[in-house]
């Protein structure tokens, strides 16, 4: 059986959550004997040639049905490959050559292309939708909060994405949702409740590196760790839940590690720059960090921070934080699809800046978390190994079977 999956980013070097999820699914297909091909229709402004595979195709980032609206390259990519004949043919011929039994869509954006392809090719290919978020609502939030887009325009974009996503749901043999909440939304809007399977996000877990001279040189005491990409909700969440309380409950020594693409955005926040001298004593940024150092940083952290205010899907960083066995201070949004851990030992839910600040103060003064073996095992249920060995995953692969 052959699966061809389409997405809007390459997975040659899986870094962000979406890439890692696609890669985990790829590995699961291959392990079960499927012939799996992934084609990325990527933004050449965001990925260099060395970041993509030969089968990946660049989109035209200037193609725009919503002029002047930022953050919608993914949506425009689907329209470009559907409505630009040259682009359509380039992708269609590649798919036809592969002769897939299934077309899997990572995110709904390429549905306009797939719809046209199925109509024109008249080939009996089953489609399934592997959702990563309920995209319309998420996109609306990003456009309003971070894109400076007016409600009316953001709402039109949301409506366009919703229509695309729900039509895809209706036409899919199976819909994989990433959280119960998203599953409910698809069931209500697309009437596809009997075809939805929830497979939340997981992580590849291997024991973290225990020691690092750099980490012990920088941090002389307990520290919080926040890992995030440059994705706007990460920066906004850190601003709202962490910096709003200010960091003066921490001594003037390194006590917070900010890792990943969020670093620049956090540094440029008014709430950070307004206290630059003091926070430079307390916060250490790791904008570009190698895997070993990140692994040691996580291993030696006192607590993980998940200050996410908006966004959909389920957060890979949440899974990492849970598996760590450390204290986890999280919002309900960040814990989405991991709700069963709400009352787990060492997991603290804080949904207001005040509560988040209180939790940080409280946890900072607590000893390192020590979990029983049962609780360690319970937390490790969020690894991909564990998720793909679940009844839900078996059900999914049963449906695919001819």
């Amino acid at each position: 059986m052959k699966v061809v999956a389409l997405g809007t980013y390459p997975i040659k070097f899986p870094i962000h959550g979406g890439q890692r999820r696609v890669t985990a699914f790829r590995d699961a297909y291959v392990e079960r004997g499927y012939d799996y091909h992934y084609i990325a229709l990527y933004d050449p402004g965001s990925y260099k040639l060395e970041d993509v595979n030969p089968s990946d195709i660049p989109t035209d980032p200037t193609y725009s049905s919503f002029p002047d609206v930022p953050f919608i390259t993914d949506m425009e990519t689907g329209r470009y490959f559907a409505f630009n004949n040259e682009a359509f043919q380039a992708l269609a011929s590649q798919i036809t050559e592969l002769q897939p039994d299934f077309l899997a869509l990572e995110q709904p954006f390429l549905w306009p292309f797939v719809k046209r392809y199925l109509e024109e090719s008249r080939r009996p290919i089953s489609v399934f939708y592997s959702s990563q978020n309920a995209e319309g609502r998420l996109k609306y939030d990003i456009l309003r909060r971070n894109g400076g887009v007016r409600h009316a325009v953001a709402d039109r974009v949301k409506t366009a994405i919703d229509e695309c996503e729900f039509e895809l749901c209706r036409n899919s043999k199976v819909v994989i949702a990433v959280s119960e909440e998203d599953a409910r939304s698809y069931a209500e809007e697309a009437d596809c409740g009997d075809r939805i399977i929830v497979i939340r996000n997981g992580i590849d877990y291997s024991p973290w590196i225990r020691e690092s001279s750099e980490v012990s040189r920088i941090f002389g005491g307990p520290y919080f760790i926040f890992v995030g990409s440059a994705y706007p909700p990460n920066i906004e969440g850190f601003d709202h839940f962490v910096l709003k309380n200010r960091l003066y409950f921490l001594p003037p020594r390194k006590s917070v590690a900010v890792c990943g693409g969020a670093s620049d955005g956090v540094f440029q926040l008014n709430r950070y720059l307004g206290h630059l001298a003091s926070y430079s004593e307390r916060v250490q940024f790791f904008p570009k960090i190698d895997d070993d150092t990140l692994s040691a940083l996580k291993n030696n952290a006192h607590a993980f921070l998940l200050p996410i205010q908006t966004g959909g899907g389920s957060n890979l960083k949440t899974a990492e934080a849970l598996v760590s066995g450390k204290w986890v201070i999280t919002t309900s949004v960040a814990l989405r699809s991991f709700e069963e851990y709400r009352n787990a030992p060492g997991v603290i839910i804080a949904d207001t800046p005040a509560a988040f600040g209180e939790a940080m103060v409280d946890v900072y003064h607590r000893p390192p978390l020590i979990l029983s073996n049962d609780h360690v095992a319970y937390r490790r249920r969020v690894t991909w190994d564990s998720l793909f060995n679940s009844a839900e995953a078996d059900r999914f692969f049963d449906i695919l079977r001819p």
Partner: protein
Amino acid sequence: MAVYYDITTSLNWAASPVGIIRVERELGKRFYHDPELLVQFCIYSKKHKAFLEVERSTALQILDGKLNRKMLEENLPKPPLSQFLFAQEIYKPFARYAHVMLKGVRHDKAANTFDDLKKMFDGEMLNWKEPTILDGFSEIKLTRDDVIITGGLDWEYKELVEINKAKSTIGFSYVAILYDLIPILYPQFVVPAYTELLAGYFGELFWTADGLICISETTKNDAIAYCEKWRLAPPSLSVFSLGSDFGGKVPSKGPSTHLEAILKKIGNRRFGLYVSTLEPRKNHRILFLSLWGELASGALDGDECALVFVGKRGWNIFEFLFEVEHNPIVADSIILAEDLSDEDLLLLYKAAHFALFPSYYEGYGLGLAEALREGKHVIASDAPALIEVSAGKALHLDPNDTRAWRVALYEAFKRKEGQINIEPGGFGATWDQSYDEFKFGLRMAAGDKIARNEAAAS
């Protein structure tokens, strides 16, 4: 075992002393004359990230308000005229437009040419070093036995992060006056641009200070609550009262022409006096609304009563003053004054029928203490520090209860006697008493070092 008293704020202050400046100067003068302590004086330089020593006689001039930064800067040597003109007319314009002038020349060549020319012009200026007032002060090499005492506008003039670093390395003691935590507790009452600056200052202060000497139990309680909330180990906390005796000054002559003009506006009317900066926290508005209500209803007569607001114009007050000055009923009955000398202010207190202090929150409320010391009936808000300072001698009202303030204002104007049952001078602390209490707090914060200094002094 040197004890340094920081007078950075006094050095930078050119106007009449108010609030914090008065505290720094009154305590400083007493440190200067104290035979039991060997106190030296210092200022902090952000540029040097260090404390600089101030010679004692210079320090006294600064504390007496006879010397300040502005005066020192006026006395700095000026560059010779030729070099000054060269700098102003040739060098600066050239530097600004050099790249435009060299447009068209290859980039690397333009850069070289510019550098060569700049070197040449710099050479012309080599003989002239821009002097600063700090040139006259030498850096203090602090030791672990030393104590720094500070109580000025430190969020403005100090880098606490740097002081803390130096303190961690050297081990000297740092004792500061804590006036209030208003920027943390009531950020809405702080100039917007200062909210984060002040929050950062307090945030760092609790990690830096060995001792905080608070100006009231209220402020001390606020400090304790802050430490409890953020689980900080509190530094040594003590309390001293502010002096309300204007440093023992007595009006020796009649009113100045400045005060005479104000008194002329008041005329024969009874007046209530509010001495405080004009800004939203001080709640002048409730007095305006109350007086307006009483005048409009005819309960009070504008020919018989007035309110006098003495204070600098602070932030976010422009529209309020416009309302006051353009309200046909109230405009002539509210008189604004500022920049009064201590002697004039004392005379005004004596002439007032009663005093007012409707502020939403205070660390102390010096104006309230000063009015009570003059034996005046005072209507004040029920802010905790004001209740603490009045010790039951004032009428306290909810600062938002306009009805209550109208009634109180009416009754105050109708009182036959302006004086209450306090002998003038019989209330509150003098600055000498204030200094003794301050020294007690100092011993709590840095006892061993102060004791060694006192032993050396004796």
